[in-house]
């Protein structure tokens, strides 16, 4: 459904403009940007959970794709290639955050100005609400390991095929399927632990 929607919005395909893109035509590349920015942004935002960072990552994705346009091989869709770049950048961002958090926590311990992190898991207002909002699901997604997060977003949020995802993450289709299933189970378990029922929605 999502694919059909994209097609009606954008009548020309990537291959129509790729020759111009390869020659370094910025205007042609802007058509690619217009075509893919929303899906890429949605994917990256769901991955990193922050609008500003997501915009930076998607901008960098387009910039890298333009810079390395001659490395693109037509064995995969251009969109698959873009998702690969965006996914790698998003994963690096998560890694960077993890390092930074580790360092900053160490610093806070030493300087005795530790940050008080509120425990929101037992807040009465959230406990009372059993239906799931987008934010709750987003939080649950962000609790997943990066490998699981990437595949479940590509499959269940962006609606990519298992074959496309396999190319993006450079893993066999079987591995991707199993990761997607595990990610779904983890999400479900996590939400249940917090007292959410997937069946009850806002």
């Amino acid at each position, binding site marked *: 459904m999502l694919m059909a929607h994209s097609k009606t919005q954008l009548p020309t395909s990537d291959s129509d403009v790729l020759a111009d893109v390869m020659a*370094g035509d*910025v205007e042609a*590349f*802007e058509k690619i*940007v*217009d075509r893919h*920015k*929303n899906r890429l*942004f*949605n994917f990256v*935002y*769901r991955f990193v959970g922050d*609008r500003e960072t*997501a*915009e930076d990552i*998607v*901008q960098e994705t*387009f*910039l890298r794709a*333009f*810079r390395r346009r001659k490395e693109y091989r037509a064995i995969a869709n251009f969109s698959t290639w873009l998702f690969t770049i965006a996914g790698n950048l998003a994963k690096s961002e998560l890694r960077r955050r993890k390092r930074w958090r580790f360092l900053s926590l160490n610093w806070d311990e030493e300087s005795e100005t530790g940050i008080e992190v509120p425990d929101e898991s037992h807040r009465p207002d959230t406990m009372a609400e059993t239906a*799931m909002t*987008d934010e709750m*699901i*987003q939080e649950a997604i962000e609790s997943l390991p990066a490998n699981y997060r990437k595949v*479940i977003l590509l499959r*269940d*949020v962006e*609606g990519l095929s298992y074959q496309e995802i396999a190319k993006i993450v450079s893993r066999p289709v079987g591995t991707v399927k199993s990761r997607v*299933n595990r990610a*779904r*189970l983890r*999400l*479900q378990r996590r*939400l249940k632990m917090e007292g959410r029922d*997937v*069946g009850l*929605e806002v």
Partner: protein
Amino acid sequence: MDAHLKECPGCVEALNGVRRMRGRLGRLEQVRPSPDFTFAVRGKLLMEAARSRRGLTARITTWLFPTVPRTMLAGAFAVVVVVGLALIVNGPNRPLSTPKSHTQAVRESPPSQVHEIPSHYVLERIPPSSRRGMAISSRTYKIRGDSLSVPHSGRAANVQYVRF
């Protein structure tokens, strides 16, 4: 699997839960970038395109001469330009550093009885011992047939013949 599901309500519940989760994820709101996103990307792309155009010459130079300083390269380039211009002015068949033999010079002279021949070809033909006191006043000498008369200073009346 179907047979197992018929007998196992726990697995049915888990499967339904996964299906519901999948459906719910598909209905998450589509988050869009800010309105100035395209403008920002365009700016970066244009800068990148300009940088790659500017950088092409520099990249080629660096690749060809990775350790040579830029000033030296500029000097070498200037020399190449000057030599190239000189070659164009003098004509492609007249390299500056390799004078032709006198016979060749004579052969290529205009087919008339009186030719002009450059003085260095004349000097090549005269033994060094005979050149003493010789005044080479002009860049060319007239040649008649296959011999030429060279004015010999010091002895005004004397004329030395040079045969080609």
